[in-house]
């Protein structure tokens, strides 16, 4: 097969980067965007080709990168990730052309955007350790630049970028170590050679490599406890960049675990996958819980990303477990469920992040407690957000549902097994999935209800107006895709099935195929999303019609009259009396008090004349990340303490430095002699 798509992807991506850095301001953004689209289109063409024919696109050259050259091979599994990235990238860059007018059309932002997309398109095609790491680093650094674009205006962006830089590089170090161990044992750095030799490795080494990879890639995917950078960086990055980070970049963490676990190491014992599943369960619950209690719109979405990645990790873990146990049908279903959830998550999370970016642009605020009533002022953005929220809540006619259904099928059909560990893991997984779904609904009812319904809580929200058409279009395309994938998941399931088959060796679809219903192969599971949606439409229409009839027919209360809600005769009703995000989440926060441990403070100040007169009561509550507070902050404090101590060695006295030199020389001479 021709490797032209890979070449075009790379070259157009580089051209886009250069265009973003070199073109004059007026044409810079559109130039970079159009070239990025060429790159994405080529990547999609290549990926679809690979998925259709089942063989790989290979590009090997000793040029471009000194000493090692380029080694790319796009395989069916990677193609799925390429398609997800490309779809999100096309919509996000279209959105960016509108968004960039507000201070994001700088040379560095434009170049970083194009480079970010290109590197993400090529990471899943990397076929050697050096190519992979170089692309991985390019992706990390360009996204770091994007997080920093708003740093002049926002202090928090700098701190977020610091967290991100450190965490991503610690993760990259773990990945580097894992891949270097593999390539030294294989004697070659090409992935094919590593996959050939990895079987002969001692099991201790294999386990070390796997755990390092899970930690490194898990930190990119936002798995708890490596997630602390994610809610900061994803929230601070400008809208389209956070859509790309949450919709596309986190996927590559999942890809990395699949790459090392399945393709390079060729699967492993049960306990590996139990670790992955445990990581998934913790991430899903922790993410969903913090999403339910966040009041910052983008932070909420970022925690929800952690939660969704947790669910995907549960799927990967379950798939590995069943494969290690010999239940290949359930293993395939779980893996396809994971891939479908990944694809769905890419689409709906970038929809939500783009809509949140529009809200931030229109109101200048991400704090839900200062928003409200936006559905009336920004109807298109509101509708887009609603579609995304329904999808992420996994409600039937939208795409989130079908992925969770498949995962339930996979988990439950893996149950008849002799291994107690697997039974417990599956039951915990099912429970976590159920609880997570509930908490996600709470989080998104809150985000939509408090942010878009009700009355405006601040002047900025009152003055908000709809964002430019091109931004609505960019986010709207993704929202339409949410609906399309929910109605016709068959469009992508075939491709995902083929990608999963390249890993597990079994197909999930039975020979009876239709475009409207999915029959699982070897399991008793059928779903017809289109019929489901049609049923839903019919039921809704019937309910609406009967309601209207009830209104029209002679009512038992002919003198029906509508009045204001009873508010104890109060005359002034202000928007501040509405439910806020904080108060809506309060019951959940109270139930999970031991997990969230929020810091609360009620401050009552009295009038000077008498303590019986109260001047003001202020209530203060923050739920900053428990893991950040308990795990990272103490560690940072220790590092800082050592740093302070070490600084006393360096006091500016030249004599002292000379003494250090002399002392070191004496020690070295003593050691050598």
């Amino acid at each position, binding site marked *: 097969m021709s490797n032209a798509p890979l070449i075009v992807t790379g070259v157009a991506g580089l051209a886009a980067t250069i265009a973003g850095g070199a073109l004059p301001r007026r044409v810079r953004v559109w130039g970079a965007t159009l070239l990025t689209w060429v790159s994405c289109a080529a990547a999609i063409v290549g990926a679809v080709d690979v998925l259709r024919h089942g063989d790989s696109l290979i590009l090997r050259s000793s040029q471009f990168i000194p000493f090692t050259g380029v080694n790319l091979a796009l395989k069916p599994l990677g193609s799925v990730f390429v398609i997800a990235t490309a779809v999100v990238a096309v919509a996000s860059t279209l959105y960016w052309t509108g968004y960039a007018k507000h201070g994001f059309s700088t040379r560095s932002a434009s170049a970083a955007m194009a480079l970010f997309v290109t590197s993400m398109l090529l990471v899943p095609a990397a076929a050697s350790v050096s190519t992979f790491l170089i692309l991985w680093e390019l992706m990390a650094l360009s996204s770091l630049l994007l997080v920093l674009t708003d740093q002049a205006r926002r202090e928090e962006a700098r701190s977020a970028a610091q967290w991100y830089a450190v965490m991503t590089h610690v993760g990259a170090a773990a990945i580097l170590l894992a891949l270097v161990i593999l390539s030294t044992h294989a004697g070659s750095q090409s992935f094919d050679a590593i996959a050939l030799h990895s079987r002969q490795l001692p099991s201790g080494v294999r386990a070390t490599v796997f755990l390092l990879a899970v930690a490194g890639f898990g930190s990119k995917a936002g798995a708890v406890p490596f997630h602390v950078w994610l809610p900061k960086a994803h929230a601070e990055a400008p809208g389209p960049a956070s859509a790309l980070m949450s919709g596309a970049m986190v996927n590559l963490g999942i890809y990395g675990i699949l790459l090392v676990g399945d393709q390079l190491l060729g699967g492993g014992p049960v306990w590996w996958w139990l670790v992955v599943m445990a990581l998934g369960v913790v991430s899903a619950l922790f993410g969903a819980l913090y999403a339910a209690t966040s009041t910052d719109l983008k932070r909420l979405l970022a925690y929800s990303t952690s939660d969704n990645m947790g669910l995907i990790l549960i799927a990967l873990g379950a798939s590995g477990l069943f494969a290690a146990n010999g239940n290949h049908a359930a293993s395939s279903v779980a893996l396809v469920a994971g891939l479908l959830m990944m694809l769905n998550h890419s689409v709906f999370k970038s929809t939500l992040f783009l809509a949140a970016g529009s809200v931030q642009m229109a109101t200048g605020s991400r704090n839900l407690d200062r928003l409200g009533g936006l559905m009336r002022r920004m109807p298109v953005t509101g509708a887009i957000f609603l579609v995304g929220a329904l999808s992420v809540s996994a409600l039937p006619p939208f795409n989130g549902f079908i992925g969770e259904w498949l995962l339930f099928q996979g988990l439950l059909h893996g149950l008849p097994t002799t291994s107690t560990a697997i039974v417990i893991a599956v039951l915990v997984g099912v429970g976590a999935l159920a609880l997570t779904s509930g908490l996600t609904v709470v989080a998104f009812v809150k985000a939509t209800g408090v942010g878009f319904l009700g009355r405006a809580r601040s002047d900025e929200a009152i003055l908000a107006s709809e964002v430019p058409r091109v931004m609505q279009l960019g986010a709207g395309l993704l929202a339409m895709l949410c609906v399309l994938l929910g109605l016709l998941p068959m469009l992508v399931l075939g491709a995902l099935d083929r990608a999963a088959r390249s890993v597990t060796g079994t197909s999930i679809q039975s020979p009876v195929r239709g475009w409207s219903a999915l029959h699982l192969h070897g399991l008793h599971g059928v779903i017809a999303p289109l019929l489901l949606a049609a049923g839903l439409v019919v039921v809704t229409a019937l309910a609406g019609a009967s309601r209207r009839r009830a209104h029209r027919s002679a009512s038992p209360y002919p*003198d029906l*009259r509508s*009045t*204001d809600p*009873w*508010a104890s*005769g*109060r*005359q002034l009703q202000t928007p501040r009396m509405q439910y806020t995000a904080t108060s809506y989440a309060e019951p959940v926060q109270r139930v999970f008090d031991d997990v969230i441990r929020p810091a609360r403070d009620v401050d009552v100040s009295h009038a000077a004349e008498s303590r019986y007169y109260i001047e003001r009561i202020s209530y203060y509550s923050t739920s900053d990340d428990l893991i950040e507070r308990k795990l990272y902050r103490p560690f940072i404090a220790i590092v800082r303490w050592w740093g302070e101590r070490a600084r006393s060695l360096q006091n500016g006295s030249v004599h002292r430095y000379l003494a250090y030199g002399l002392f070191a020389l004496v020690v070295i001479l003593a050691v050598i002699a």
Partner: protein
Amino acid sequence: MTIRTVLQALVHRQRVTEDLKMASSTRSPSAVSLHGSLQLRHVDAGSCNGCEMEINSAFGPVYDAERFGVRLVASPRHADALLVTGPVTKNMVGPLLKTFEALPEPRLVISLGDCAHDCGVFRGGYGVEGAVDDVLAVDVHVAGCPPHPEAIIEALRSLTGQ
């Protein structure tokens, strides 16, 4: 409370009951749809609280107005009638109207005490808007400053017919 006062109260209650039994138990035409049950929402529109003390007394153990199908409720949404005391002060016009608006139909307005009828000693005060009559259409008035509990119960019984 000594035993003596308790006994006095009991004797008094007996006498009150006998007095009230002799009173007419015809139902006023405006209360036919109530079917003998009256739920009251009380609004203090600016009263000196004298009337409130008598209302308390009418619903207390001695007079026990609930025997006749009358109850004080906590929300206008649950009420059949508004029981308004005091002159209507400027600050209370809005809340009074809002409370009336919140009452389901059919609804009645009872003004209680002389102030509610003609502002009493507060007439012409800078904070006084007017009598209850000036704000709402009054169905039943209970006179007195403050009205005796027996008078209150009599008026209420004319509505419940019990």
